[in-house]
């Protein structure tokens, strides 16, 4: 039996940002107080998450029953924190603080409208994210999953113009459409099959069931496509569409929170609903593997052709998400460990890249990669961070990305899937091909943006960075990418704990 601790800590961690919402609304006229309440909520939230960390590291899980369930009638709403949820919660809540600081700089820098609404919904979506991370059963997971879709819609459509409306429509129709069409039937099917038990504690929900190959594959796909936040093709188009959002939103939500919630759900489904045994028995996992592999390659190719920086980042995200899905679908210990690590690795790397894109836009108003040649001299910190961030996403040393990709590769090799290993390698090359030229061109342009021959010398007086509130967070996250390479101990330990708990 599992070692469980009853504690209200996960509830408080979730509530910290929820309670910030009324504060933000109350202080809508006092800008300073409003921003302080956001930051304070972030710190408090991280504090609660850190308080849970030692318990998790002891190998225990924290369980809180929010709404009790009556056997045979309803499913309880339960929080249950395990190592996987812990990693995700840590990543999300620590990056929220960075994003809050960044958002303050960004929104002030551009003098955006309706900032109160922006910060309020930002806090709300963070609560939903932690809710997903701590979800103790499938129903709770779904509940917070939908809450996240809805609370991010006002953020995506923040500009309230025609483009935002289009992006918002795509965003919601994909996310809600797939969840109603695939996820709910899948959950119901599981519910009936498992006789009303949807809990993630103990063995996987369907572990003991007698399911054939075809039902298993169909159910797996229904889940994988139903949680379309994971961005598996062909239900990925919402992600580039959602790039109409202000950059802080794209940064936290579409590189970290929303998309990671998608892959998080897929990991939970594979390990917690099916269990490694059941999927491995028929090789049902391979179907998911190949869909993910296809997504990895195709999205990388599309990313190569994008000139809009944020769109390129979006397609890169789609590819990286499929890494994680692919890793967990391989069902091999090392690959799963790699997947879990990649959640963190990709988060810090990608958020850096988005921060940089936003900083460039705030400082120069430029959105397209072709306009960015030579900008390195003007914004050295930003582009240096961009370089480190790209290393993290590509998986080159010295970045945490190397560690996670290494595990993924090893996992694929040990699982005997050489073809999938090749997919990883090709994709890494493609990643390098679409990221590295950006920072190279920025520092060593053939021509600068005015068309003059370059070799103008770097001068401190020429430095024109974005506001400090934008630059500091991106430097912090960039150094995190590198720092985690040298000190990955905590992440590895948590990942090991999780893998240990789902091992057949």
């Amino acid at each position: 039996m599992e070692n469980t601790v009853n504690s209200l800590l996960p509830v408080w961690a979730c509530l910290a940002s929820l309670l910030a919402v009324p504060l933000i609304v109350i202080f809508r006229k006092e800008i300073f107080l409003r921003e302080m309440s956001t930051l304070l909520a972030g710190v408090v939230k991280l504090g609660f998450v850190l308080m849970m960390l030692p318990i998790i590291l002891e190998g225990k899980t924290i369980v809180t029953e929010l709404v009790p369930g009556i056997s045979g009638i309803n499913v309880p709403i339960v929080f249950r924190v395990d190592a996987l949820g812990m990693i995700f919660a840590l990543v999300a809540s620590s990056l929220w603080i960075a994003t809050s600081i960044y958002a303050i700089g960004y929104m002030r820098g551009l003098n955006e409208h309706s900032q109160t609404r922006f910060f309020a919904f930002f806090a709300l979506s963070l609560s939903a994210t932690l809710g997903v991370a701590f979800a103790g059963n499938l129903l709770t997971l779904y509940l917070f999953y939908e809450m996240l879709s809805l609370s991010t819609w006002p953020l995506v459509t923040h500009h309230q113009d025609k483009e935002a409306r289009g992006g918002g429509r795509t965003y919601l129709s994909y996310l809600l459409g797939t969840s109603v069409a695939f996820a709910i039937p899948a959950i119901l099917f599981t519910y009936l099959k498992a006789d009303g038990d949807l809990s993630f504690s103990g063995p996987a929900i369907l572990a003991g069931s007698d399911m054939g190959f075809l039902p298993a594959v169909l159910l797996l796909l229904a889940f994988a496509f139903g949680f379309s936040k994971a961005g598996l093709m062909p239900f990925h188009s919402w992600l580039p569409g959602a790039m109409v959002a202000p950059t802080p939103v794209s940064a936290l939500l579409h590189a970290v929170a929303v998309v990671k919630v998608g892959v998080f759900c897929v990991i939970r489904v594979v390990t917690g609903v099916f269990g490694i045994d059941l999927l491995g028995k028929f090789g049902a996992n391979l179907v998911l593997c190949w869909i993910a592999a296809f997504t990895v390659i195709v999205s990388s190719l599309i990313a190569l052709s994008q000139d809009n920086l944020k769109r390129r980042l979006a397609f890169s995200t789609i590819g990286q998400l499929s890494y994680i899905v692919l890793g967990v679908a391989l069902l091999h210990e090392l690959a799963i460990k790699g997947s879990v690590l990649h959640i963190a690795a990709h988060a810090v790397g990608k958020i850096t890249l988005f921060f940089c894109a936003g900083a460039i836009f705030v400082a120069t108003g430029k959105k397209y990669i072709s306009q960015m040649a030579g900008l390195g001299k003007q914004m050295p910190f930003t582009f240096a961070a961009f370089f480190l961030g790209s290393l993290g996403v590509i998986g080159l040393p010295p970045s945490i990305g190397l560690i996670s990709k290494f595990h993924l590769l090893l996992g694929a090799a040990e699982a005997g899937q050489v073809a999938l290993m090749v997919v990883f390698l090709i994709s890494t090359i493609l990643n390098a091909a679409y990221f590295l030229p950006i920072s190279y061109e920025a520092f060593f342009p053939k021509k600068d943006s005015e068309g003059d021959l370059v070799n103008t010398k770097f001068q401190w007086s020429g430095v024109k960075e974005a506001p400090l509130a934008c630059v500091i967070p991106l430097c912090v996250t960039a150094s995190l990418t590198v720092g985690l390479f040298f000190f990955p101990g905590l992440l590895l330990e948590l990942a090991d704990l999780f893998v240990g708990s789902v091992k057949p």
Partner: protein
Amino acid sequence: MVDQIPAVLVLAPLFGALLIGLIGHRDHRVCFPIALASLSVTFFGAIAAAQHVFTNGPMDYFVGGWEKPLGIGIHLRIDALNALLLIAIATVAVLVTFFSIRRVGEKNTEKTHYFYILFLLLCLGLFGITIAADAFNLFVLIEVSSLTSYGLIAMGSSRSGTYAAFNYVLMGTVGASFYLLGVGYLYLTTGSLNMQDIHTILGSNPEIAQSKAVTIAFIFILVGIWIKMAFFPLYGWLPNAYSYSPSSTACFLAPLMTKISVYVMIRVMISVFGLEWIFVSLGWSHLVVWLAVIAILAGSVLALAQREIKKMLCYLIVAEVGYMVGGAWLADEGLWGMTGALYHILADAAMTLCLFLAAGIFVKRFRAREISDLEGMFRKAPWVMAAFVIGALAMIGVPPTCGFFSKFYLIRGGLDAGHWEYVGALLISSLINAVLFFRIFEIAFFGNKPAEGHDHSHDPHETEELPVASNEAPPVWSGNLPLFATAVIIILLGIYNGPVVALIRTFLEELPIVASSL
């Protein structure tokens, strides 16, 4: 004391109505306190009754001590099936009373007391329908509630409303007459009017139960009730009647009238004919489920075609009636469809109330009748809009609102019974509802024609001030309070669906049908 509750539930609104009739015309300000007082009595009475029923079992009350099966004694009965519904009716009634404070007599206060008299009599009718245990008294009470609702609808100032009320009178009377006809055939064959008696007689005399006359009685009763609940092909009267009536009236009728009719159908199915007779002997549950599927799809699609907010909501009611009828007729072994239908009666009452209250506020404060009038509503009335969003999410079926859980139970029943078409219809209808409401959210958020590019020149301080245009009435606490309360109820009912459904199950599991073969 507790024994008298069934009578109190009916008498309190009656005395309230009489009192208002006596003194209301002198000063219209006494109407509200009297109405509130008498409804509060029923509210606490309903809660006490529910508590009693769930601990001690059903309560029977024989008016005047004339016990059954005296042909026409008045038998009131509160059991687990209707105890929760009583609370729902009383809650809606109290909330709508608050909502009606300023709204009723704004134009001409001499009509205020008429409104409250009819309103209280309508409450009487609804409580009576819910607890009547006698088929003929049920007819009388249906007519009491119908007559008062005709009057309430006709009180509206719009011309189309009067005509809609007339049509409603015709349809409603025909529906009630069909019901009466069905009861006549039942009386012919069984010689009793008491529901329990009829049930026992039908159960113990198979040759009566199998006779054509009983089948015909059932068909007449069913058609009559279907007209009353606006089940799909018979829904024509509803959209106009509800959308042209005054806000307070619509807020009360929309959540309750159709739902009560669904309850009557379920009551007749369970307590009069018996599920076994209906599902096994009669065996056309498939047909009715298909009708429900058509109702769901047609209601949703018709809702999509509407430009007026209230009309759109009315067509959604038609779809929701399809949910409940379909659920009640699923005939799955565990009766999860029936469970879902009963839970959905409560859930739908809450969400319809929420949406209609919000729509009423839009009309009253912003003169916004059409969907396109909602432009910028998130800025003008963020709290009202927030409550509207919660109601809308419940309609779509997003957790943790009650709408999600009722669909959950209904779909479970559909899967158990193998009615895939019903499950599909529910999911499609959820998607259509999503489209429907997000179209509204978009207009309220972006305006009808959003700017081409986004404009950074907004001054953040300026735009966040609430603009008060000259034709907008200031917010009224008595209007907003019930709305927020309903929004909270929607969420609480969703989160605590387990206990509520457990209460419903205690009733259903005692039915012999669950154990026997289905």
